């Protein structure tokens, strides 16, 4: 260009350029202007106290996942046939006015012949201290390392059912801890499925436009107008009964992800369409960047934060979906333990009236769902740090 029109060359000031002389930036502003957008997001997220607390709670929950065998006092399948439907034992610190560290009182039961109920009586004369970093049920850590070390164990020759036991005399607390592994990972795997689908279809619609866009949009509308649960039910009823628990697990996550992607795809599409008109895209185009580079290098990083925020907000619905399906007996099946599978036992009203501690798995479900909601809200606010 310059060779064609030599007279219209740019004027360039020969004096050296000193950026500091133009607009003095305060030290406070400087760190703000120089920060990467991820850093800005973190600063903004950090100000949201509730979201931050929720993030720490979730972190604690997810740290549990690889360590369940160590943290749970019993193995998930250990049956204690002498203690069926035993009520929760509480942890005490003081015995007869004296501090002796955390301990439990043992209980004995009598069988009521008339009501066919076990009556548990607590013996408060004999405190049994809880052991820490101790040896208990044997297990294989991560499936390779045979060991029997636990974070805390029942007293010697005693029992410690902090949340009671179920109909086979299995410790409910241990089962809830084991269940966390499945229930928490299913949300992440499910969101990965839905994220991939959403990015693919949304990207296709926003990028290609035309009839592809039209078809995908109609598809999204139809899927969004269907009630999720009946479809989940129908799809999981279609999983063959002879599949192994692992295959069922993946089947369920795929089912959960299959109906969740339309929301994400819609977000991807609208973001792509609006960002396509931005100046920086035009600039990249003029500089000769290829389409794939523009999409991969400029567009996607721009709305990734939004996507992550909205994905966080849809994890709870996955966890709840799994819980609901398993609760109804159409999701995961024993021997796999998830919170929904545990709640399946609480489906029976009589059981709930006699053994209300079977409802305990509700608490972690609600806690995790709330935490994801709060964290997602915080992330969404922080996702756009320049506003």
């Amino acid at each position, binding site marked *: 260009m310059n060779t064609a029109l030599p007279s219209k060359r740019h004027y360039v000031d020969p004096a050296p350029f000193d950026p500091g002389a133009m607009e003095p930036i305060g030290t406070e502003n400087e760190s703000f202007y120089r920060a990467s957008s991820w850093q800005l997001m973190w600063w903004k997220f950090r100000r949201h106290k509730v979201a931050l607390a929720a993030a720490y709670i979730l972190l604690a929950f997810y740290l549990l996942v690889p360590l369940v065998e160590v943290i749970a006092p019993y193995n998930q399948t250990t049956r204690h046939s002498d203690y069926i439907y035993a009520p929760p034992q509480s942890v005490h610190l003081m015995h007869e006015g004296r501090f002796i560290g955390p301990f439990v009182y043992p209980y004995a039961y009598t069988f009521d012949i008339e009501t066919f109920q076990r009556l548990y009586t607590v013996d408060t004369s004999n405190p049994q201290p809880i052991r820490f970093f101790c040896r208990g049920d044997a297990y294989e850590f991560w499936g390779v390392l045979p060991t029997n070390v636990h974070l805390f164990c029942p007293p010697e020759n005693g029992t410690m059912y902090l949340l009671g036991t179920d109909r086979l005399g299995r410790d409910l607390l241990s089962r809830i801890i084991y269940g966390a592994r499945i229930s928490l990972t299913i949300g992440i795997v499910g969101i990965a499925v839905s994220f991939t689908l959403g990015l693919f279809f949304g990207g296709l619609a926003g990028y290609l436009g035309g009839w592809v866009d039209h078809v995908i949009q109609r598809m999204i509308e139809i899927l969004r*107008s269907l009630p999720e*649960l*009946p479809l989940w039910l*129908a799809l999981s*009823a279609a999983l063959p009964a002879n599949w192994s628990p692992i295959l069922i697990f993946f089947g369920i996550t795929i089912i959960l992800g299959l109906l969740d992607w339309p929301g994400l795809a819609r977000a991807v599409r609208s973001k792509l369409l609006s960002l396509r008109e931005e100046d920086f895209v035009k600039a990249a185009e003029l500089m000769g960047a290829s389409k794939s580079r523009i999409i991969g290098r400029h567009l996607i990083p721009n709305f990734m934060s939004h996507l992550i925020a909205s994905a966080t907000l849809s994890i709870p619905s996955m966890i709840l979906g799994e819980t609901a399906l398993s*609760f109804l007996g*159409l999701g995961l099946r024993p021997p796999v333990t998830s919170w929904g599978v545990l*709640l399946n036992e609480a489906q029976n009203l009589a059981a709930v009236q006699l053994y209300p501690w079977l*409802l305990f798995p509700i608490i972690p479900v609600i806690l995790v769902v709330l935490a994801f*909601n709060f964290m997602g809200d915080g992330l969404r606010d922080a996702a756009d740090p320049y506003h």
Partner: protein
Amino acid sequence: MIRFLLRRLLTMAVTLLIISALVFFIIKLPPGDFLSNQIALLREQGDADAAAKAEFLIRQYGLDKPAWQQYLVWLGVMPGPNGFSGLLQGDWGWSFEFDRPVFEVVGDALWLTILVNLGAVVFIHVVAIPIAIYSATRQYSVGDYIATFFGYIGLATPSFLLALILLYYLNRWFGVSIGGLYDAQYAGEPWTWPKIRSLLSHLIVPTVVIGLAGTAAMIRRMRANLLDELGKQYYVTAKAKGLNPRKALLKYPFRMSLNPFIADIGNLLPHLISGSVLVSLVLSLPTVGPILLSALKSQDQFLAGFILMFVAVLTVVGMLVSDLLLAWLDPRIRMGGAG
């Protein structure tokens, strides 16, 4: 308006057609079906008569034909063994598990499903609007914080777990049994005033439980909308000119903030119906929920297919109604050729 209505009706018909294909595909997914399982079982037991009857049923319902033909017959656009007789003609098929027509099996459950969901929609609006107005006009007051807090809890607590907890505590503290549709002594009795009262009192808890999550979401959205409107100049002007505050609020900003509120019914309905299916299962309400679950478990294909179709129609019609209401309220939508 007529053109708008026609266009929406056409879209709805196409949507339902696609949904019906989807539903049929899903109920056909599991290998085998109720009848062939049944026949295998009967053969093993050597019950030749019953097996012959089941085989007759297979021919009767064309289950030996390819799947796409079965679909067209089920839909009613292709003549089956009994001529044109499918969903379009009002023949909902045969329930193999109950050995009765689907129509008889679902019967009252359909009305109850509609009643419970309608009740939940009404509950959401009646509760959410006043609370949202209160929250928005007294932003950051104690009441606002309480409403926000309960909103979050309502949003995060899964409805079926809430139903379980309520079932337990109401029974324990008040001796109220909230499961089922009416007290046991009214079963099989004619509809009398006490029976209707019993029915209504049993419906309160499910309606509240189903509607709670929706209410929480509504309050949040309505509060945000109203706050936006309250900051605008026309409202400040109206107040400055000495318009009665109640009138100033209800006549302008409130009406403006209602628009997204109605548009939301469409988004709300799929969730409501999902919730009602689950809650009915927990509270053993005879809506379509429990029937669907048992039909899916036993692969009773026409029954399951019909119920899936029914809930889809319910949501799609609900969305149509909300669209029409919106178009009636806001001329920009019907003129702007949205669609």
